[in-house]
């Protein structure tokens, strides 16, 4: 639901059903609402059957990459030998600009997340779950900490979950504010107490993850969807689909920017994007027209108003328009937006958050930012656009993780789809109205 707004008729509330319902936060409240039944059911099944069920549901990763969740779980070694512990890591380091869905899941339905984590842990043979919570999430942290304590008290976590003999423990790990720690291998380093730098793959986490042990990393929203799949079955979940059969279930969309009712909206996969923006989120402010949408968090290419006309909200539909569903953090911009400034602001974010390992990212994000800052300052040159595109090419597909690519994506899509905005600056026809409002990227001195 579009908390704090009431649920919209076109929403399918599954994860967001209890948003705003403080009573759902407690263990008893959650149980009253049918909670932990999915976990109990899963514990009565074989691990393989649980994985099969999730596989058949078509559930895909909600953190950005959209990898089939059940398939990911099958990558874990079948046996858990002595000295070969398995780990589940729940990625709650939600830091993608524009995304705020995991925060709400943790705020309102912490037990739903814990239940999903426990089912996943059981399925992959993990006895320990690390829930890596973004450092800035102080309130979700407190709520999760309380919920974990309650779950342990109630026997939903611990040495023998609900007396099944399965040991499942949760460790809450608090991030320290680095965006890059949302990348799964950087997160594993961070959990180990190391600098949060992404690791080279291979080895993949399922072979060698946290502390060198087989590890699965899943997003909060992904795991939160698992209990209802257990309860209602794969077929039911799979049927939640309005367009591409490869995209099933519901997706929480964090809609922000120039809409009248920004918030989290949960819709069935395949719902038209227009419905989300213009009906659920209330459309543009009076007298304003839609200019651009970043559909899946700041790392994905920008879409034009034309492109969203017939775009369904699912992995394939958005990909067909040259962008990505990503994390579902939708940034809506109307015709008052200075796109050059917005893109500079994104680039600056990536320059600030680059872990500094790979040369292209360390230097390229900062260089890109400086060029954009210069263009905004009225000192752009016509050849700057080609330079930006060439830098973006040099920064794409060359590094360990995709932060560098993420910086390049909005630059490339911005220049290609909104060339007139950039032209206006480099031809000296426009001066920035807002570029002075944020301090320039400072070199360390």
């Amino acid at each position: 639901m579009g908390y704090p707004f009431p649920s919209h008729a076109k929403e399918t509330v599954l994860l967001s059903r209890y948003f705003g319902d403080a009573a759902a936060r407690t263990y008893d409240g959650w149980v009253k609402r049918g909670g932990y039944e999915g976990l109990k059911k899963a514990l009565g099944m074989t691990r393989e059957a649980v994985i099969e069920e999730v596989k058949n549901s078509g559930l895909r990763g909600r953190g950005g990459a959209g990898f089939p969740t059940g398939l990911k779980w099958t990558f874990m070694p079948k046996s858990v030998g002595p000295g070969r512990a398995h780990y589940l890591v729940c990625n709650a380091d939600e830091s993608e600009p524009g995304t705020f869905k995991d925060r709400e899941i943790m705020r309102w339905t912490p037990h739903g997340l814990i239940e999903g984590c426990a089912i996943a842990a059981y399925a992959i043979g993990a006895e320990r779950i690390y829930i890596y919570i973004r450092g800035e999430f102080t309130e979700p942290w407190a709520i999760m900490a309380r919920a974990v304590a309650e779950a342990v008290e109630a026997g939903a976590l611990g040495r023998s979950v609900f007396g099944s003999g399965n040991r499942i423990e949760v460790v809450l790990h608090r991030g320290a504010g680095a965006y890059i720690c949302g990348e799964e291998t950087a997160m594993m380093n961070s959990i180990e107490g190391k600098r949060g730098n992404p690791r080279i793959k291979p080895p993949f986490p399922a072979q060698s993850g946290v502390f060198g042990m087989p590890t699965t990393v899943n997003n909060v929203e992904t795991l939160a969807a698992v209990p209802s799949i257990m309860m209602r079955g794969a077929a039911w979940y799979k049927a939640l689909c309005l367009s591409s059969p490869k995209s099933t279930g519901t997706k929480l969309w964090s809609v922000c920017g120039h809409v009248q009712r920004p918030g989290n909206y949960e819709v069935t996969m395949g719902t038209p994007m227009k419905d989300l923006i213009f009906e659920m989120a209330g459309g543009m402010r009076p007298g304003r027209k839609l200019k651009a949408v970043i559909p899946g968090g700041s790392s994905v290419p920008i879409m034009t108003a034309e492109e969203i006309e017939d775009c369904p909200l699912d992995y394939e539909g958005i990909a067909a328009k040259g962008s990505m569903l990503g994390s579902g953090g939708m940034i809506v911009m109307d015709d008052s937006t200075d796109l050059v400034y917005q893109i500079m602001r994104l680039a600056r974010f990536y320059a600030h958050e680059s872990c500094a390992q790979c040369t292209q990212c360390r230097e390229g994000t900062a260089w890109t930012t400086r060029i954009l800052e210069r263009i905004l300052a009225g000192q752009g040159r016509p050849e700057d656009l080609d330079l930006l595109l060439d830098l973006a090419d040099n920064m794409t597909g060359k590094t360990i993780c995709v932060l560098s690519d993420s910086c390049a994506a909005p630059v490339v899509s911005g220049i290609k789809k909104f060339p007139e905005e950039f032209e206006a600056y480099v031809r000296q026809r426009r001066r920035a109205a807002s570029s002075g409002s944020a301090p320039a990227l400072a070199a360390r001195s």
Partner: protein
Amino acid sequence: MSDLVNLTIDGMPVSVPPGTPLIEAAKQAGILVPHYCYHPSLPSPAVCRMCLVEVEKAPKLMPACVTVVAEGQVVNVNSPAAKKARESVLEFLLINHPLDCPICDQAGECELQDYVFQEGRSGSRYDEYAKRYNPVEDFGPDVLYIPNRCILCTRCVRFMEDVAGEPILNVSERGDRAHIGIDDGHLLDHPWAGNVVDLCPVGSLISKDFLHKARAWDLDKTASVCTGCSQGCNITIDTRDNTVVRLRPRANLEVNRHFICDTGRMNYRWMNRGDRIEAPLIREGARHAAVAWDPALDRFAQLVRGTSGPVVLLASAHLSTESLAMLKRLLEDKSLRAAVRIPVGEEAPLAGVSGLALRRERAPNGEAARMLGFGTDWEATVAAASGAALAVVVDEDLTEGEAAQVSRAKAVVVLGTAEPQVIASAQVVMPLTNTAEESGTFVNRDRRVQRYLQARAAPGMAQPGWWVAAETLGRVTGTDHQPTTAALAFALAASAVPALGGLSHESLGLVGQLARSGAETAGAGATS
């Protein structure tokens, strides 16, 4: 050949063992893939992204340092895409690099300079703002960090963490503000810390000792062996205008991989000593007179020939195997007692490389001395010299007390590089070359026989110890079939000492060979 992986690199077929990274496989095809963070003695983080190559069927360019060979793989190091990627890395690296090559110690041996020259752009497109600036930091006894030149390859960080086992270096900050940091209250004073200077591909970590001493292109480089201890680390002696200005490790995977300790690294000033004996001296009455070699050698031969009593040979364990063997040969039909002095110190292992340490035995050739039958009971041998008919002291600084004892011998002959204590009582004094001034071999603690080459010209009339002994022996025996080169002197020793059998300067090459063990020599003796 079935256990090798076959692949094609730039059109050249290559066969390498499974698990080999592409960067090493490419070396076999004679192709050096440009790289910064990769180093064969360090774990590979694949962060510099310089070694990106095109692998057919791979969706993206692959880092050659961590991509392992696969059967039938087709690799293109110099495809347009790979070259563009590397060119872009170089451009990115240079946007914050000061280009202060004219005052940078690394210039001439800088991998950034080399690769930019090889395949970089002719100009930069970065003309935004001033470059990143950070002040120079003093990292420790011999290491300065110049952050502006740093390309953040993290070799130094990994060396301290994974090889030295003292993880005090780190990457501080993020993005283009990043720089190498050192833990508060720590210095790079680990006994092997100096290696970070060699590992640094650019001029960011530099040696204070070498600071502004020479330009790389003015240096003559000579393969040698460290004299600091019995480990026998392979080194390169860098000389400028006949002066040794720097010792650096020379790769030998069997002995020291790519490293030397700081004790060895700094152990070169004696090679440049100015207070040298430059001419043979003969005692005439109360004083010594400088003479040509012939009279000195004649006098030494005369003393050897005329001696019937006990002879004591006190030699340095820094002498080459050739010199020790020839001296022994010269005096072996006498009633000879020979010993070397083995100085000792504290052992300092390098945690990450097994079998590599600064050894307790602080002399390079104690093993050869033992092999040749020299004793190590130095004090007793010095005491024995007081009653000897002839005492020969070779390149060893005696204490005042030792000199007094040796001076009681009936005759004293000194072969040395600098004036020793016993010189006043010596009948003959003959000038020797030091290690840097001659070629020879050392035998390390693992009985690896390793050659070192002459790095600088000897002062005055100085000659190697084996030459002096051989010339004297010729005079004593009346034969002139004595070795005239170090290689011949070694061959003579190899024919006499079973452990050295089968070895020659030629076969030793520049990485050495193991001497035969006792069992092997016994077997060889039985069959021959």
